[in-house]
């Protein structure tokens, strides 16, 4: 927990611990980057597939059942900490669904910077969908296509102004 406590960036080990095994990523899966015990459970209550467990003690970090998880993304825009995203590994690319709360929204097809957890630009990425609905209550879901080598690095995008 050390570096996370000092600067808000989890270690690679911590990050990998939230991922399922590689073959399960052929379909999208939710990655819950919730490393601390905080009193919070919306991700488990909103999941329509009962794939996220927290239990009676709402301080328990969420556990994802990757067999049940369809990567629908409902937990992504309901997480108050914006700490969840989904990822899918295709033949050519990775496809992420990330929460986004800034204006102006990126456009479909826009090339953006891919950013890591340190806020550093690691590569370019493409926006493949800008998903908005009233149910999402102002948290946009950006579908982002990223190169495969950034599976454990990519976390968000930054528009190229």
């Amino acid at each position, binding site marked *: 927990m050390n570096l*996370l406590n000092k600067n808000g960036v989890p270690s690679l080990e911590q990050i990998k611990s939230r991922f399922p095994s590689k073959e399960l990523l052929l379909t999208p899966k939710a990655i819950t980057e919730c490393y601390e015990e905080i009193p919070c459970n919306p991700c488990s209550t909103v999941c329509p597939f009962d794939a996220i467990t927290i239990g009676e003690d709402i301080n328990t970090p969420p556990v994802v059942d990757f067999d049940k998880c369809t990567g629908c993304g409902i937990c992504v825009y309901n997480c108050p900490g914006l700490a969840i995203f989904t990822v899918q590994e295709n033949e050519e690319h990775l496809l992420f669904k990330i929460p986004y709360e800034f204006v102006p929204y990126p456009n479909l097809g826009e090339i953006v910077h891919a950013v890591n957890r340190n806020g550093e630009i690691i590569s370019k990425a493409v926006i493949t969908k800008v998903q908005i609905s009233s149910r999402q209550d102002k948290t946009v879901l950006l579908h982002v296509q990223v190169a495969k080598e950034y599976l454990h690095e990519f976390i968000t995008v930054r528009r190229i102004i």
Partner: protein
Amino acid sequence: MTNYDLVIIGGGPAGLSAAKIAAEAGVKSIIIERDYHLGGQLVKQTHMFFGSEKQYAKTRGIDIAKILVNNVMDYPDSIEVMTNTTVVGLYDDMVLTLLQNESYSKIKAKSIIIATGASEKFLAFENNDLPGIYGAGAVQTLMNVHGVLPGENVVMVGSGNIGLIVSYQLMQAGVNVKAVLEASPTIGGYKVHASKLKRLGVDILTSTSIKKAIGKDKLEKIIISKLDNDWNYIEKTETEIETDVLCISVGLSPQSRLLGMIEAKMKYVPTLGGLVAVINKHHETSIKNIFVAGDVCGVEEASSAIVEGCFTGLIVSERLGHKHQNHDKLYNDFKSQLQNLRSGPFGKKTRTGLEELRRDEFVK
């Protein structure tokens, strides 16, 4: 002088919740709020709240405020509201004196719930009174309530939840947050909030504090310094940062001064934020029929304030002879919600504080 069964001082989450439960039980109340709006600090919180469904988790603070206010508006015959009204006096014979603009009046209460919340602490450093140095809550009011940009660049002092959340909200409003300074070696608030900031390229500097603010009649730059393990500035580690806004977010202090007027038994408990009333398990102070709820009895989160408000509303209703029809079920539910909210590592401070307070608990 008008008599009320229940007077609730403070129209924030605790006060609004108490009024609602009391109204459900058939108790008439009046909420007295010194600001021009109800909702307390919730009205400027644009982020989704934590906790569980019962405390409106995943709902934005601004929307929780609307829900709580609407709950109160559902009982126009039971709940009276006075805004722009300050309770300026609280007396032994359960008389309250009120000041609304130029108008001064007195009312009498059978029972009182003090839900006056908490206010931001200050920090001592050279030139800390320069315009441009704001409490973090003040910055939120400017940008989220009035849509006014606080400035161009901000340095945030304090990495508790408020400091981290307000920094994120500043970025959302288009203000550049240059850094978050934290005097301790570790980040104070939830790490998910810190992670959100790091992604945006904001530096979180631990073991660092503000030493001096510089500017002519308004802030222009600051001098920061690293701290050693005893909170002393380390020589020769000073850096200058140009900024027009400095936000101070170093904790909240309960606004418990009214309790001093009736000589309620108080205790200074740092883990609860400061001077709080000594209370029994029903949130009653040492003065019969005067209760406290929300941040004024211990600084926590809005989720706890809502539950404490509900709880005291329930207790007071029974005391007034209007036992809520679901009294027992709700009593246990509210107690278990509070326990749940406080059981994790972030609840440790509150648990320690309440333990310390309980040592002074008087027998009634």
